[in-house]
């Protein structure tokens, strides 16, 4: 079992706009921007709402739940520093609030991942950052099948 914490991989480089997302993540909170004008939820963080161009967006705690839109088990990563973690699962998560984000799946057996699987956020320390990764909402029965432990 591989622990992500020990990986020396490229971390996020926050901007002034996105920093609240990463600051909240460090506190274990999954937050998203919501447009003050049209009410749309927005991910990734932006200065303007991509739906109505309103420049006022506020941060709100989000459900941290979503469904797997698609996924891939990575055997040969694009960045060499991730090689220590293979195979790991990258997924597109359609968040309950609407937007889709890319993340990593944890605490899941490789052969049990499915499109439409329901997942919930699980913060995992990678380097200096707490990254919002996702795990199945119903845990697989056999812990030994897990490809990753998140401590």
């Amino acid at each position, binding site marked *: 079992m591989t622990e992500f914490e020990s990986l020396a*991989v*490229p*971390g*996020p*480089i*926050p*901007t002034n706009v*996105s920093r609240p997302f990463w600051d909240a993540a460090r506190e274990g909170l999954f937050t998203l921007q919501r447009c003050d004008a049209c009410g749309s939820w927005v991910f*990734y963080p932006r200065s303007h709402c991509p739906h109505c161009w309103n420049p006022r967006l506020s941060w709100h705690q989000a459900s941290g739940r979503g469904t797997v*839109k*698609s*996924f*891939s*088990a*990575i*055997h*040969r*990563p*694009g*960045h060499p520093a*991730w090689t220590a*973690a293979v195979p*790991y699962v*990258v997924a*597109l998560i359609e968040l309950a609030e609407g937007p*889709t*984000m*890319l*993340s*990593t799946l944890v605490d899941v057996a490789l052969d049990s991942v*499915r*499109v*439409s699987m329901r997942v919930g956020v699980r913060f995992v320390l*990678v380097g200096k*950052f707490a*990254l919002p*990764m996702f795990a199945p909402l119903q845990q697989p029965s056999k812990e030994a099948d897990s490809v990753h432990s998140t401590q």
Partner: protein
Amino acid sequence: MAGRSLGAIAGIGELKPVRRTQGATTLGLIAETIRLAVEDAGLEKDAIDGLLVGPQVGETPQHVPATVAEYLGIQPRMANVVDLGGASGAGMVWRAAAAISAGMCDAVVCVLANTREDEVSRSPNRNPIREFDVPFGASGANISYALPMQRHMAEYGSTPEQFARIAAAARHNAQFNPLAIFHGHPASVQDILASPIIASPLHLYEIVMPVAGGEAVVVVSPERARGLKHPPVHLLGAGEKVTHRAISQAPSLTSGPLKPAMQQALARAGTNAGAMSLLALYDCYTVMVALTIEDAGLCPAGGFGRWVEDHSLGYDGDFPLNTHGGQLGFGQPDLAGGMTHVVETVRQLRHEAGVRQIRNAQLALVTGNGATISEATALVLAADS
């Protein structure tokens, strides 16, 4: 010819792809590729008064057209960068024709070339992908194409064999192109399925081989093209669409921006995908061809697998597809990879494709695709009549 010519391709230049270069410079390869294309057009150097080039990440971040023009000793009246990833080549062709129609210039060279030196520099990006994809272990294009492929399989029940068939057809076609990197190296569906999984469900042989190379075309007006060295190849229609950058932001994982781009290009040309002598479809990965076949309306959504089983995709088949081997068979010389589809189409429509000549080739659909099914350009090209 189905419609009115919007412009003509009068010259082509292509470098034989190689796995590695030693001491080559991007400017040097660009110069050689341009020289070949202008010579092929039967034009003099000084006739070139328009220049379209690609971005040069990490090498010449700004002022790329001026750098290339200075290097080649030309002084264009129109110069620009076309930055649409794999759609850049196709995107250059209609931009060149539009610039000529607007009276800005008369003869435009469109060029893309790249080296592959041993020293590989990592991209210095500071953008949303770098912040929100890379930290989750999703660097590079392979993962971004594995995701739509997995989604297609889940949504439509398409199979690994059906995707592999596309790569096998590309390898087959490469056997008729001595320039192709996989010339002499055919691969069966079984071979492709036996190659390692890189990012499930994507196999190694479903991914293009990165190579160094260069591709260029010269575009002039249809009137100017007559009387030059080769019969002109006419642009009858073009369409373009950009929908997103990162795959997480894609409006759909199973249909892309090529759908409206192809619809626009085909409508302008007054034709449809089924009437093409050649399908020159951008093929960075097998899934890209699968989605394009569906988006072109050649089969219903989700039905590419049946379609590739039912048709023969060689130069002598009922639906010749990427007769040069595609990028899956020819190799992908970075951004120039998209231009290989244009150059091959010109050869076929001039009836100069040699052993792989499609009989009575008249019309072709060329597609370009950039980033992660993000940037799309479609062209309809026709033989001179």
